[in-house]
């Protein structure tokens, strides 16, 4: 069968997926076309929903997004900022550190 990818324990067939996608999309379209036709352009119906407030003039900036995510992971990001110093000396230092760690791992692995 064309498009059938065996993954060892399961399988994946994109062509069947695409067919299913179009059938579902058709069904959704039919259901939608039977809905209430009260849409009026130019009224409040076309405004984006922004918790009842007026949306900002020039849209929502990327800096405003995922605020809660960053607030929850504030300590992680603070730590990450500290690691990413942007100094070339540190880059080489980490490289040497990784070499030493790997050497230790290989030596211990050889003893076991």
């Amino acid at each position, binding site marked *: 069968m064309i498009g059938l990818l065996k993954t060892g324990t399961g399988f994946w067939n994109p062509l069947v997926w695409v067919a299913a996608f179009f059938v579902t999309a058709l069904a959704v379209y039919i259901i939608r076309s039977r809905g209430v036709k009260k849409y009026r352009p130019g009224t409040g119906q076309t405004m984006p929903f922004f918790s009842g407030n007026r949306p900002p003039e020039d849209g929502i900036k990327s800096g405003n997004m995922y605020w809660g995510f960053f607030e929850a992971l504030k300590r992680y990001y603070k730590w990450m900022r500290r690691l990413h*110093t*942007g*100094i*070339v000396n540190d880059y*080489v*230092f980490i490289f*040497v550190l990784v070499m030493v760690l790997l050497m230790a791992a290989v030596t211990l692995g050889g003893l076991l």
Partner: protein
Amino acid sequence: MISLPFLAVMVIISIGLSAVIFRRNLVKIVMGTSIVASAINLFIVSLGYREGGVAPIFTGAPTLEMVLPTPQALTLTSIVIDLAVTAMMLSFAIIIYKHYGSLDSRKRRLRE
């Protein structure tokens, strides 16, 4: 079979790496990489050396043991590469100095 040239090579490599890691001046960082490269060149040449060998030139050679010519070809290649890398890094250092008026690696503009 630890011999003096190999020890010397390891010491010089450590000196070069420590220069790259701990020096803040960009030109000194370039010097550090250059020192490491020279140490490795020394290592290759000392690998090919035979006790009491003569230079591997066919012309007028006495019938003696010759040193191995392959490592010398490798060394020449790596010297040429090192020259190109050093020239390029120094050019970048010149441009950085011209733009920011400083060669300090810690006064960085790119981070995170």
